[in-house]
């Protein structure tokens, strides 16, 4: 079983990319990936419309796609929307610094508290590797404040390995690791049990992500099983 936890479907207005669920499923078949976590492009501010695209993708491919919804903490109706998405079958919530709400903000904490009540993991997504470093202190304060909440920290975050080593409620994806060797270097401080294979497709490639894990000679078969599926199954209650 192979699960890739970082994939986008819908419309990316920044680069005029449109990706359908069917295109993703075709890529999954080519790469030998059984299931994928999908969520909207965070470059698209139309949350309602793009979450609907993900919901339709989940409905068309219930055995292949697991949906997360994106949420902007600035929306006054945020918690009501989150309850609604939970009822629709979404498994987690994605937020991103580009929505303009800092990790120290009241609204960000409320999003996390709502996810806690709904028993959903919170994906801290980012496409901003350079500037995130200035936000590490409030991010770590947030992770410490809510030890019951499971966070998936995008590997785009500066010092994501160090942060995960310090906070046991943090999972990492592999999307920005340039090689399996980089992932291997995270295993000692973090542990294999909190690393998830994630390609960031369509920017990344599912096949490449599998190849990275396969090609790294220091991984045992069990470590690969953890990263491919056992960690995601445990995290998402699959």
């Amino acid at each position, binding site marked *: 079983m192979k699960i890739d936890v970082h994939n986008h479907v819908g419309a990316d207005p920044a680069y*005029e990319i449109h990706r359908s669920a069917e295109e993703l499923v075709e890529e999954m078949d080519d790469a030998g990936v059984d299931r994928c976590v999908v969520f909207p492009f965070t470059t698209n*501010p139309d949350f309602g419309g793009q979450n609907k695209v993900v919901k339709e993708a989940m409905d068309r491919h219930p055995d292949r796609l697991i949906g997360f919804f994106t949420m902007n903490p600035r929306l006054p109706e945020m918690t009501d929307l989150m309850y609604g998405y939970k009822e629709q079958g979404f498994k987690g919530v994605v937020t991103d610094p580009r*929505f303009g709400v800092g990790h120290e903000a*009241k609204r960000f904490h409320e999003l996390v508290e709502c996810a806690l009540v709904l028993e959903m993991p919170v994906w801290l997504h980012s496409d901003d590797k350079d500037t995130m470093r200035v936000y590490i202190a409030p991010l770590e304060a947030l992770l410490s404040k809510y030890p019951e909440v499971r966070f998936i920290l995008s590997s785009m975050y500066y010092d994501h390995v160090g942060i995960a080593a310090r906070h046991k409620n943090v999972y990492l994806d592999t999307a920005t690791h340039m090689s399996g060797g980089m992932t291997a270097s995270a295993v000692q401080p973090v542990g294999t049990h909190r690393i998830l294979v994630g390609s960031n497709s369509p920017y990344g490639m599912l096949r490449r992500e599998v190849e990275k894990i396969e090609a790294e000679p220091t991984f045992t078969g069990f470590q690969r099983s953890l990263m491919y599926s056992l960690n995601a199954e445990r995290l998402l209650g699959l």
Partner: protein
Amino acid sequence: MVIYLVLDMHVHLTEERPDAEWVWSHWPGEERRSQPVEVFMEKMDSCRPRIDRAVVFGLHSLASETPEAMRRDNDYILRVVEEHPDRFIGAGVVDPSWGDAAVEELHRFVDAGLRVVKIRFSSMHYHANNKAAQRVFREIEELGVLPVCHSDWTHYSNPLILGDLASMFPDVRMVMQHFGEYLSFDAISVCRRLPNVYVDTSALVLPKNIVRFMEEVSPDRIMYASDTLSVRGGLQPQDALNRVTCLGLPKKMEEKLLGGNAEVLLRSVGVKL
């Protein structure tokens, strides 16, 4: 005594709202990042030299959660300009991530009389040369208005990537706000190549690069600006003026920098001063 025009090219204004409208988004006791027009006018009058006029735009919708948020900010600026036409030049905020809605909003506020467009690509984590940005710039070119774009050190809006956007639209004059911040040498390099790019001095880290810009690029394409966005703290207009006046520029140069260059540029896009 200063007898020429002093014009601040970069000021954020925000509508004063009752506490009940902020309570959901702020921790108790937290100071809001906002500045209503009345507060900034007092600052303009108390500055030395006095600030005669300012280019003003919104703050909260630079990356907007809804298109309505963008419209709300711009409506406030339209009201400010209507009430104080002799002090303020309004700019509308556009968040290009909204696609059709962004273009629609651009046309709406230009139709209402604004001739300046504010875009901050790093707020929405959009690279400044991406497709959405190019689309908005095509509209800007068509409308003949002036884009004023935030610059910084990020990969979204550093001087080089803003320069790439400007090079695609050589007939559009663009203001690279903040002079690249820490990347002011990059800003100088871009402006040397591209005659359609201007800079403002807000948040500039190395003030001596103002002199370098005037000597190596042009004395006509650099403008005083403060980037004031809050009642207290952060960037304030007097401090921004001091950053310029401490250089001891020849009077002619200081006159251009503090208002003359801005006046020429704004008039060229149809702003009535």
